[in-house]
């Protein structure tokens, strides 16, 4: 039998690098930092009760509109509530809605996109048309309409309809991207090999296609968490998302409206900063994830 090539067994260093996490940390420093930020935010949100210095709902008309000081690190708002605490609790809302809306939207979108690409033909054409129509609208418009139609529906303190309102507009956008990705996979010889081997459709979609779509899926997931948080902020700002007195960053911005620009700009500054930094972290993480996954697959 033909002799084979020599292959030195891997060193401990190479073994360590085989772990995806270690590889990611080494190759994507920006992504690692943003990842850590996100992790910190999650922890802070989970342990808000412990971390926040004040009760976010505590109204104090005496101490209202205070500038940032040692007592209230980020100042107080127009009814005397501590801004820092409200921001910390606001993180809960933002992260919960962000994750859930993005996850639901992206998963639905990915399934539709993959199935559409695999089956092709008429199924694909119909799905494409539907997606084209849905793509026409900015997320916020559709979200507003869905909110208008469905109203509010609180389950365990979370507004399920709000999550749906943000998730549904996301799905077609994700479906389009995943479909494109899946199309390039469907034509790969290894899918042909699977078909030639007589495997069932289900096996091919789940075992052969979806794992290869995981890359773009994860990237879209993080990107749309960022989008979802922005949309929720906009909705809350308009008064159509989360409602008073629940702490939500967008909501805090609307209460810090024009009348306070001159006297208490910190009411506007900090919640907005919180939104921006969080969205930035998710964007950076998503970028890093995409860069990390890309050259790997190209070898």
């Amino acid at each position, binding site marked *: *039998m033909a*002799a*084979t*090539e020599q*292959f030195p067994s891997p060193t401990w260093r190479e073994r360590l690098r085989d772990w995806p996490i270690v590889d990611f940390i080494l190759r994507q420093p920006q992504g690692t930092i943003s990842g850590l930020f996100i992790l910190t935010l999650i922890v802070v949100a989970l342990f808000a009760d412990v971390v926040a210095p004040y009760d976010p709902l505590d109204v104090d008309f005496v101490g209202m509109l205070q500038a940032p000081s040692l007592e209230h690190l980020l100042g107080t708002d127009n009814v005397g509530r501590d801004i820092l605490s409200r921001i910390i609790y606001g993180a809960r809302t933002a992260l919960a809605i962000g994750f859930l809306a993005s996850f639901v939207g992206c998963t639905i979108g990915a399934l539709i996109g993959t199935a559409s690409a695999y089956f092709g033909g008429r199924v694909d054409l119909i799905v494409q048309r539907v997606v084209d129509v849905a793509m026409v609208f900015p997320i916020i418009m559709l979200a507003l309409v869905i909110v208008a139609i469905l109203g509010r529906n609180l389950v365990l303190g979370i507004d399920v309809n709000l999550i749906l309102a943000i998730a549904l507009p996301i799905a077609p956008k994700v479906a389009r991207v995943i479909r494109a990705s899946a199309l390039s996979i469907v034509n790969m010889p290894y899918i042909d090999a699977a*078909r030639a*081997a*007589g495997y069932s459709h289900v096996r091919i979609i789940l075992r052969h296609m979806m794992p*290869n779509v995981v890359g773009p899926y994860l990237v879209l997931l993080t990107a749309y968490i960022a989008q979802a948080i922005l949309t929720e902020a906009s909705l809350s700002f308009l008064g159509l998302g989360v409602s008073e007195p629940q702490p939500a960053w967008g909501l805090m911005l609307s209460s810090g409206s024009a009348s306070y620009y001159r006297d208490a700009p910190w009411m506007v500054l900090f919640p907005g900063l919180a939104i921006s930094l969080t969205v930035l972290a998710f964007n950076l993480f998503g970028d890093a994830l995409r860069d990390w996954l890309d050259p790997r697959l190209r070898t």
Partner: protein
Amino acid sequence: MRAIQDTAILVDSPVPPRDAIARLDAAEPLLVVDDLHVTFTTPRGIVRAVDGISYRLHRGEIMAIVGESGCGKSAAALAIMRLLARPAGKTPKGRILFQGQDLLKLPESKMREIRGRDIAMIFQEPMSSLNPVLSVGLQIMEPLRTHLGMDKETAHARALELLQLVGITDAERRLDQYPHQLSGGMRQRLMIAMGLACNPKLIIADEPTTALDVTIQAQILELMRDLSRRLDIALVIITHNLGIVARYADHVGVMYAGQMVEQATAEELFARPRHPYTIGLLKSVPRLDRPRGGRLETIEGLPPDLLRPPAGCRFAARCTLRLPLCDTAPNLVPIDGAEHLARCHRAGEIAAGLTPPSRTSPAPRTIVAPGQADVLLRVDDLHTTFVSRPGIFAEPMVVRAVSGVSFSVRRGETLGLVGESGCGKTTVGRTILRLTPATSGNVQFGDTDVLGAEGASLTAIRRQMQVIFQDPVSSLNPRMTVGQIIGEPLKVYRLARSRSAAQDRVSELLSRVGLHGYMAERYPHQLSGGQRQRVGIARALAMEPSFIVCDEPVSALDVSIQAQVITLLEELQRELGLAYLFIAHDLAVVRHISHRVAVMYLGHVVEMADRNALYETPLHPYTKALLAAAPVPDPAVERMRGTVVLGGEIPSPSRPPSGCVFHTRCPIATAECRDVVPSLEDYGSGHLAACIKLPESLAKSHESRPA
């Protein structure tokens, strides 16, 4: 009777004798490469891509640099043009003297003047080397206006001249067209025209014909040689194809792992190779003219990693003549006279008659008498047509990929299916496998009708008929380990009783294809091209098939690796009694592995015969042209062949010519050929050909033979 052709054929021209080159030796060399080093700085370290190569070239000479992928030949070429990717690529050492000036020391502005004016470069992929949004005319006129300062009218006129010089017809119209409207061959001619624009003294061609069809390759190379001789241009051709080297080169340099391991004139190199790598290469290349039963030598192993090259001889790890002495690096020294250099401690012994032993036992290939076994696969009048609509309101485009193809394959036999792009060979394979729906026709596998099978019977057939693909990169699921890929069929078809039995079987399959057991845990991207292809074979074997469709399985592999995979396929055929449909465009490879061969052109089978009959006495004009176009790695043989080049472009399968699809390029076609579609006729002992002119031309050659 007037012959009908599309474009002019470059007529049979004798190859200029090599001694004529000698007169130039007296003059100053145009190009002197002196101890050139090229490095690339990567995140993992410094890769020493070129480690001290030297050669010289005079005007009008053709030098070929031969090597496999990763040997540094392209890097060396880019270094001459100072086009190495910045900032990673550097030339830390060495000189490149062009007309006496050291190019490496020139300021960038001076170098820019030389590029395109005195030295031109032609790249491998004509498709992507031309700017898609700029017109042909603009791209040709650019160097004229930049270097020679021509105004628009003069440049336009010269551009027309250039297009005609390179054989592009209808030049005026072409100038306003865009690259995507030209065929591959025409685009490469355009690249040559751009290169010639300012009358350069040196042209560097990096794999100029690798991406082209065989008959087009021949056209382009003939053109380049012709221009080189006529216009006194020095030509450096970088290639991995030894046939091209034999046919066209005056001097040859063989590169391996960044170094020149042998340098000589082409004659010398092929007649008296002195380096074990060269010898191994020459023995591992399948040849068009090899007598039957020849066994391919293989060079086991892989080239070394250029991040940390070995201290001693870089080829030692794969060399059958290895000695402890080889742990010290050998120098490039003259053997057999000053012109023939080799980098091997044992080159002297080789000159004195030492032959590197072959790794495998030279048992002659036993060819199972194919006529005896029963027919496994029968294809009858198969048609596959694609209809596409580029837009909703556009005309549908009908592509007849396969038009009435019939053949049969017996158990244990290999049927080679050969042809150029658009001939439909891949579609035939895909249709048989039910990956592409057939339009009409019949395919029988054993007793079962393949095209009509559904459900359980379809699955049963699929197990029996397997496939191996061309591209090792995309034929394996990047997210599955090798073990999972090979083990999946065992799981789906429950071919193993338990998990451990399955693992054992996977190991067994791995070793059968020549891979170590621990490969099972690796992912495809961690394997080399040859290794991936072996995994593909193991996957096919896991289902215990009796028939495998091999779709260009070695085209994407290096020469020395090709031999490994071909030998593996042959061994498996003998051991397991497998039948193959071997689809390829490389005639030499097909000759080597097939029992019978069918030649396809634009969806039709034009000739089918027993392997030797086809290669020794081809009947159909297309087969003859195909064989003539493919160079043989032996200058002596090449010189005797002369060159007959088939002109014209391959028609698009969506608009095939009427009647005999080959008539537009056929040297013996007449008006009749436009109206009649020829059918396959038997010309004796199963040698089939489809050409209405054959009976008369055969009769004529009988007459002209002396009694």
